[in-house]
């Protein structure tokens, strides 16, 4: 899933300053799971903004709230038509994709990001999420015992550890496991150490032209395609 963190409250207040009627919009999928922008966080941000406004004695803003099942899908965004009739801005607690989907769907309406989209990852334990995939477009987990060096090695190198690893940790962050130590140990356990002995050539960065588009094979065939 996509993992994000809520933006600092003061930054949110600064962003909404020019607008009167603010719709705080949550997202029911990834942002809910990572506690950054689901229904609960929408309520929390809403209350915090109201409280801050009351405290400062400035009555510029009115707030409303809503949480969609998914912000990254036009079908769900259609449900917003009534909600946005009387607002000046959407403060989206969706990921960066949600924010952009809103911008594309509603060309006249400003949209603000309420979270910093951080990475694709998984829940490690309650309240802890770890990055696991960099969407490099050229998956090599078969060679590395299911542990991604692109994502989990700070240098994203392919031919084994650098010399900076100490106590199994990374030179860039002493709380972070060295991906190559993990890969070596797991390959050893699996009896596949020959995989780390192979030479891996430089990465192909053309596998990730930005922005990227994937066209479903089924849809392509049905439509007949145009080449």
């Amino acid at each position, binding site marked *: 899933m996509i993992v994000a963190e809520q933006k600092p409250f003061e930054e949110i207040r600064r962003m909404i300053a020019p607008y009167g009627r603010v719709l705080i919009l949550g997202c029911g999928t990834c942002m809910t799971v990572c506690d950054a922008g689901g229904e609960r966080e929408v309520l929390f941000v809403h209350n915090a903004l109201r409280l801050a406004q009351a405290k400062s004695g400035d009555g510029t803003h009115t707030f409303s709230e809503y949480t969609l099942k998914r912000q990254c899908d036009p079908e769900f965004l259609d449900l917003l038509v009534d909600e946005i009739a009387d607002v000046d801005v959407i403060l989206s607690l969706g990921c960066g994709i949600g924010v952009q989907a809103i911008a594309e769907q509603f060309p006249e309406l400003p949209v603000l990001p309420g979270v910093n989209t951080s990475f694709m990852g998984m829940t490690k334990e309650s309240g802890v999420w770890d990055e696991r995939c960099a969407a490099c477009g050229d998956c090599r987990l078969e060679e590395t015992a299911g542990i991604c060096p692109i994502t989990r090695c*700070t240098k994203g190198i392919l031919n084994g550890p650098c*010399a900076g690893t100490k106590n199994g940790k990374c030179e*860039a962050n002493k709380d972070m496991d060295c991906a190559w130590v993990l890969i070596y140990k797991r390959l050893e356990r699996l009896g596949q150490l020959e995989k780390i*002995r192979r*030479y891996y050539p430089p990465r192909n960065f053309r596998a990730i032209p930005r922005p990227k588009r994937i066209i479903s094979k089924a849809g392509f065939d049905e439509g007949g395609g145009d080449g």
Partner: protein
Amino acid sequence: MANSLFEEKLYSNDFLVTTEVGPPKGADVSETIHHIDLLKDKVDAINITDHQSSVMRFPSLGGCLLVKERGGEPIFQVTCRDRNRLALQADFLLAYSRGINNVLCLTGDSIDVGDHKEAKPVFDLDSVQLLKMIRTMESGTDIEGNELKGAPKFCVGASVHPEADFIEPQLVKFEKKVAAGAQFFQTQGIFDLENLRRFMQYASQFNVKILAGIIVLASAGMARYMNKSVPGIIVSQAIIDELAGVEKGKGLQKGIEIAVRSIKTIREENLCHGVHIMAVGNEGIVPEILEAAELVGMSP
């Protein structure tokens, strides 16, 4: 014919001595030139570091040009941290065209340990791929197979970490570097010669020259700091205790003594093919170390 003076030495049976000079933080190169002049006739080659510890400095290639200007033999340290494959190849062409024919291929320290922590880390290649790239260029094409008008030729080195606390994957990488064309290795700082002995028992099966890295410590505090903050450095407790045992202000003297002792043992016991002395900021003391270790007059 050898590609460089250093390569010629590499294949003699002489005990090899290299050292390093860190370029300045700034455009004033007078102190660097002073250090080069002090060292150029006393060692077989001078490494110029490449934004060591990810701290932005005068470039390695620029430092190598200074070594050439002063009549010395440079080793161009190249990391993959700051340049993609286009820039790296271009720098090798420039280096070769100016007679800089020795390179040391490194992955490079992480951006996070340096003084520009918000910079974009490149790492388009790693050290093994960098070595391979040089060998490809030597064959007359760039790494995409496009013909080069004038192919470079280098004497190519790499680094290895015999004191790593988990040595197996480091040895895998060492073998990949050998296979990718490394001719010599300058090791990370060695503080416990037992680790070097063990490493050499393994490494002597390969046809490469090993220069043991000797870091000159200036105090117990510096040793502890390096253990904590410098990637790949593991100073043994015995050395820290030895440094801590001297009165204030005498730390560097003790550090020199320890370095000299290591060098002498390495040479007497013929543990490896040479030493690479890293005085990290105290380049001026290297001649004293060479003299005390009875390495003076061996070069050129």
